């Protein structure tokens, strides 16, 4: 008698903890979307997670049985914590996008594993009553497929951002992917319409389904260009959310359900917001209309004019207003610190320096802000491109460092160009333009940039870090 009482009290504590955890997740997400409360929001969500995990370990019961193998569970958590902590602390800020992708993939894999392991244990009673075509099996199938696609896709996205995997652009890809997707759906229907006494009899089919899903995840991300990776990661992030929610269905677990669905929907909206910042539709990103060098932009015409470091230093030092447009080139060269040094030096000389931040500069929206914040560039100096554009005609020099597509005037002029309509930093409005680049290579969208041939443009070739260092030295010597 006493035991029963105790048991139900534990369950109540478990459910209350899950409610609290869900509230903390919601508050956390809410606070994460405001600059001042973001850090506390992240902490709140983390507290919610700890609460949910601790309550599960202590009070969860399945058919009256508590969580077993507790030593091993704790050991696994210790291993995961140690690895996760070290990776998250060590990795450079420039590699943030691929890191998010990596962790996302881990969650997807966990969801897929849960489905794989639960499949053979679908209750015989349920199968007797309604066959394989029941919600329980459907949740397992969806958790498996979505989790696996998210895992495989995230790993490919990780590889691409890390520069280990190139793009695979074949026209037929679209049809191949659609047929694999159709095959997956057919497979699920096939499994769910089998007439068996126990789900374990179909385990081999589910393992095949797993491998087909891996193939789909890989092929889904392969043709998508590197510039679109943030959108893909965000999308896969919401996939993992849905996969986690499927686990919530399976176990009737409210914390998994709310957490998963919340991320699923918030992630989807975030994906759409990102697409909007680039003026693309989600469908275009996924199907991959980005031709890649398809348009030659009316043939690169005009001449390139170079400028010496000394002349550039003089020009900058005697300007009133300077705007810097940082791009990923700045970040890969790890030049954000030296760039800040240059801007401090110019400010000492009475030059007003601002940074024009394009929403998709870097490899992820907001990535550039994180990188510049790392280099201690004051928040007030960072201006979003929409706000700075009207100011550019009064700007003496605009310095484009390692950015390309975000200043490409083709987005305004050339309706046939793949980035047409994307909001840009209107660099050509400034009085003088200095472009720092490693060479004449094209940007991520692989299209010609007419800005480089503009009369007001001077090119400063070289690695961003060493060029900036040289500039700093020259400015100092003036």
């Amino acid at each position, binding site marked *: 008698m006493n035991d029963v009482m105790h048991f139900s009290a534990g369950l109540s504590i478990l459910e209350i903890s899950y409610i609290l955890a869900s509230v903390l997740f919601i508050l*956390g*997400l809410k606070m*994460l*979307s405001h600059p001042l409360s*973001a*850090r506390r*929001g*992240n902490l709140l*969500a983390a507290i919610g*997670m700890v609460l949910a995990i601790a309550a599960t370990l202590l009070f969860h019961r*399945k058919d009256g*049985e508590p969580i077993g*193998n507790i030593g091993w*569970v704790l050991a*696994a958590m210790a291993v*995961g914590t140690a*690895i*996760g*902590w070290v*990776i*998250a*602390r060590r990795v450079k800020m420039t590699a*943030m996008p691929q*890191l*998010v992708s990596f*962790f*996302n993939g881990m*969650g997807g*894999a*966990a*969801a897929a*594993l*849960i489905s794989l*392991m639960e499949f053979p244990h679908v209750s015989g009673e349920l199968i007797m009553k*309604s066959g*394989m*075509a*029941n*919600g329980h099996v*459907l949740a397992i199938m969806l958790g498996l497929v979505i989790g696996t696609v998210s895992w495989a896709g995230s790993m490919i996205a990780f590889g691409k951002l890390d520069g280990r995997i190139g793009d695979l652009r074949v026209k037929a890809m679209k049809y191949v992917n659609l047929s694999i997707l159709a095959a997956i759906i057919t497979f699920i229907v096939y499994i769910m319409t089998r007439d068996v006494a126990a789900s374990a009899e179909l385990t081999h089919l589910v393992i095949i389904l797993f491998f087909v899903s891996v193939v789909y995840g890989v092929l889904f991300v392969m043709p998508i260009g590197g510039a679109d990776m943030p959108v893909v*990661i965000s999308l896969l*992030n*919401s996939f993992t*959310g849905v*996969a*986690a*929610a499927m686990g919530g269905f399976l*176990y009737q677990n409210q914390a998994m*359900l709310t957490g*998963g*669905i919340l*991320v*699923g*929907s*918030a992630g*989807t909206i*975030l994906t759409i917001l990102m697409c909007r910042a680039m003026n693309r539709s989600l469908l275009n990103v996924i199907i991959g209309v980005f031709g890649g060098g398809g348009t030659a932009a009316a043939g690169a015409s005009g001449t390139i004019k170079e400028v010496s470091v000394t002349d550039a230093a003089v020009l900058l030092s005697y300007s009133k207003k300077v705007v810097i447009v940082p791009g990923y080139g700045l970040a890969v060269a790890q030049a954000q610190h030296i760039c800040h040094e240059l801007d401090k030096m110019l400010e000492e000389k009475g030059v007003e320096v601002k940074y024009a931040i394009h929403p998709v500069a870097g490899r992820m929206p907001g990535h550039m*802000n994180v990188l510049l914040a790392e280099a*201690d560039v004051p*928040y007030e100096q960072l201006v979003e491109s929409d706000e700075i554009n009207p100011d550019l005609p009064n700007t003496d020099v605009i310095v484009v460092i390692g950015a390309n597509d975000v200043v490409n005037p083709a987005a305004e002029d050339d309706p046939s160009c793949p980035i047409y309509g994307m909001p840009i930093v209107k660099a050509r409005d400034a009085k003088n333009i200095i472009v720092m680049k490693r060479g004449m290579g094209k940007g991520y969208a692989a299209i010609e940039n007419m800005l480089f041939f503009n009369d007001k443009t001077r090119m400063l070739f070289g690695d961003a870090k060493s060029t900036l260092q040289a500039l700093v030295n020259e400015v100092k010597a003036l």
Partner: protein
Amino acid sequence: MEGILDFFMANRGTIYMVILSVFLGIEVISHVPAILHTPLMSGANAIHGVVIIGAIIVMGHADTTGAMILGFLAVVLGTLNVVGGFVVTDRMLEMFKKKK
């Protein structure tokens, strides 16, 4: 088919909750400024690490060595997602903080 309908009826409370959560998720983040897109994505990424609960349950009731190994793997991966996700997000946001 009948099974699915049964499932719907038996879980209609849950399904209501799911639908409301979808709208809530959209509402909660729809005014996020572009500079916070990356940290927000990373924070959301950590939250779906809640899948670890499923991994703990599955491992907690594993009865064969094979299931134990897979369960162990699932818990490790889930923990990676949670810990890595929150730590990375905090690291990003820490940098914004210094300025203010």
